[in-house]
């Protein structure tokens, strides 16, 4: 049994919610949101710090408030949604199946929106050796313990990785009376936004050590300490630099990856650089009618940009449903020197779009240029380009032609 829908949205976080409201605005009302958790809102529910919405609403909101702006729109418009609904399969012909406490839900969708967000990399992903005591948390799970369940993860913490969630958690732990001894970052630059270094570490006198990593974990049933070493240019620990930091809590903020399990099952082409789907400028994946936005497509720094991207996705879905989506070209977007990845990875029409990218290293007075066959399309000058910050460049409609790759270079 499968119910027909114009669009099935997988995920009720910032991406899915913004896509749903925007689709409704565009006259696409026959839609449903499937959310795995018991409430809508996704990761925003546990992000109680402020700073959300500055771009989008011109005011500084906490995560739950930002989410509520969209959730109340979903409710007011009567957009159908199911919570506690975990999608277990997605097929090439856009059949979606979800398990819920009251049984299976099956849909046959004209369009599918992949908005499942991302997951944190864990101790296993970075292979820290040592014993296996309790007290080792990803930053997001420590955040959930504290902000949703009112449980403190420990008393004395060390943080590995300088991603934004780790920095935010350094401040959160400190405010709750937990001593944060230091933040260690294996790379030579912080991974989070500059403002978070200032307001989460500097404000509380928490030191940040670059080119350092945790090389051993000690403790029987509970963590008793970590060994930290300096690393060389190739990120290899330097012998003789080991130092022991006694602590009962290790917080890992070592990166996020798209939650792409469903994509793999459905046979959607994945970009190894982002771990998200390969999409065109309409955010359509390798399966026609299946679109993707937000952190399952590529990890963003700001929820505001996830909302924007998802609204662009909604416009594409609406055009697709009415048969008016641009096509006719097959241009690849190539990452030239200095560029880590781009979204989209290909261009199929001369519709304008926003090119998102990350640079590979910190650059001062950087120039990002987009060209095709030696013809420069856009150039963006920046005082500072930082891998921790996603860069967006508007590519005007009519500027891409059918011949030759688009090349994106940063330097």
């Amino acid at each position: 049994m499968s119910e027909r829908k114009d669009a099935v949205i997988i995920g009720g976080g910032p991406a899915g919610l913004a896509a749903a409201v925007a689709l409704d605005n565009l006259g696409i009302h026959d839609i449903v949101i499937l959310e795995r958790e018991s409430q809508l809102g996704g990761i925003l529910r546990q992000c109680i710090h402020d700073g959300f919405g500055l771009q989008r609403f011109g005011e500084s909101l906490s995560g739950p408030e930002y989410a509520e702006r969209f959730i109340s729109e979903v409710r007011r418009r009567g957009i159908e949604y199911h919570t506690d609904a975990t999608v277990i399969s997605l097929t090439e012909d856009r059949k979606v199946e979800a398990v819920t406490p009251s049984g299976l839900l099956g849909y046959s969708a004209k369009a599918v929106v992949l908005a499942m967000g991302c997951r944190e990399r864990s101790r296993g992903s970075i292979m820290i050796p040592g014993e296996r005591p309790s007290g080792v948390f990803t930053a997001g799970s420590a955040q959930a313990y504290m902000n949703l369940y009112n449980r403190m993860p420990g008393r004395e913490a060390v943080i590995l990785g300088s991603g934004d969630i780790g920095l935010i958690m350094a401040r959160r732990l400190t405010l709750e009376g937990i001593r944060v001894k230091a933040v260690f970052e294996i790379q030579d630059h912080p991974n989070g936004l500059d403002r978070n270094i200032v307001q989460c570490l500097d404000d509380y006198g928490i030191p940040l050590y670059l080119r350092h990593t945790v090389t051993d974990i000690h403790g029987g049933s509970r963590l008793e300490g970590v060994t930290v070493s300096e690393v060389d240019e190739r990120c290899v620990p330097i012998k003789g630099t080991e130092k022991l930091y006694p602590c009962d809590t290790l917080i890992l903020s070592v990166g996020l990856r798209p939650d792409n399990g469903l994509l793999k099952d459905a046979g959607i082409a994945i970009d190894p650089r982002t771990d998200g789907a390969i999409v065109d400028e309409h955010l359509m994946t390798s399966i026609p009618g299946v679109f993707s936005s937000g952190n399952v497509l590529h990890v963003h720094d700001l929820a505001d940009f996830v909302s924007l991207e998802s609204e662009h996705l909604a416009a594409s879905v609406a055009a697709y449903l009415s048969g008016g989506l641009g096509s006719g070209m097959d241009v690849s977007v190539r990452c030239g020197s200095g560029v880590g990845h781009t979204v989209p990875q290909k261009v199929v029409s001369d519709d304008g779009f926003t090119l998102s990218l990350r640079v590979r290293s910190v650059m001062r007075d950087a120039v990002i240029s987009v060209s095709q066959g030696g013809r420069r399309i856009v150039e963006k000058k920046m005082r500072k380009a930082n891998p921790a910050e996603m860069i967006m460049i508007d590519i005007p409609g009519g500027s891409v032609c059918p011949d030759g790759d688009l090349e994106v270079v940063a330097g």
Partner: protein
Amino acid sequence: MKRTLTCIICPNGCSLEVEKEGEEITVKGNLCRRGAEYAREELTAPKRTISSSMRLIGGDMEIVSVRLDRPVPKEMIFPVMDAIKSASAEAPVHIGDVLLHDVLSTGADVIATRNAERKEGR
């Protein structure tokens, strides 16, 4: 006196060149007006906002998330945290509800940032 500050008002995180000569403060490198205001305040009387959680009675969860509706002097961060920790709210609570008015005479209100409905039997 010359200093470089990172503006924390928005994610742009402008790098601000701040120069203080007597009472005169000049700011360069800011993309907007708020950056100059931030730099002046940071040199004279730095302020911050706080987000945390307050104990919730009779609600769907043990706590409700809260924040200040405006920044307070930096030295008030921990006293305000203590005030939030020793208070409690009773469900139902809605976004924007003032849970502590003019906390510690700072002029800032502690407001709820989540809707928490009443749940019987808790």
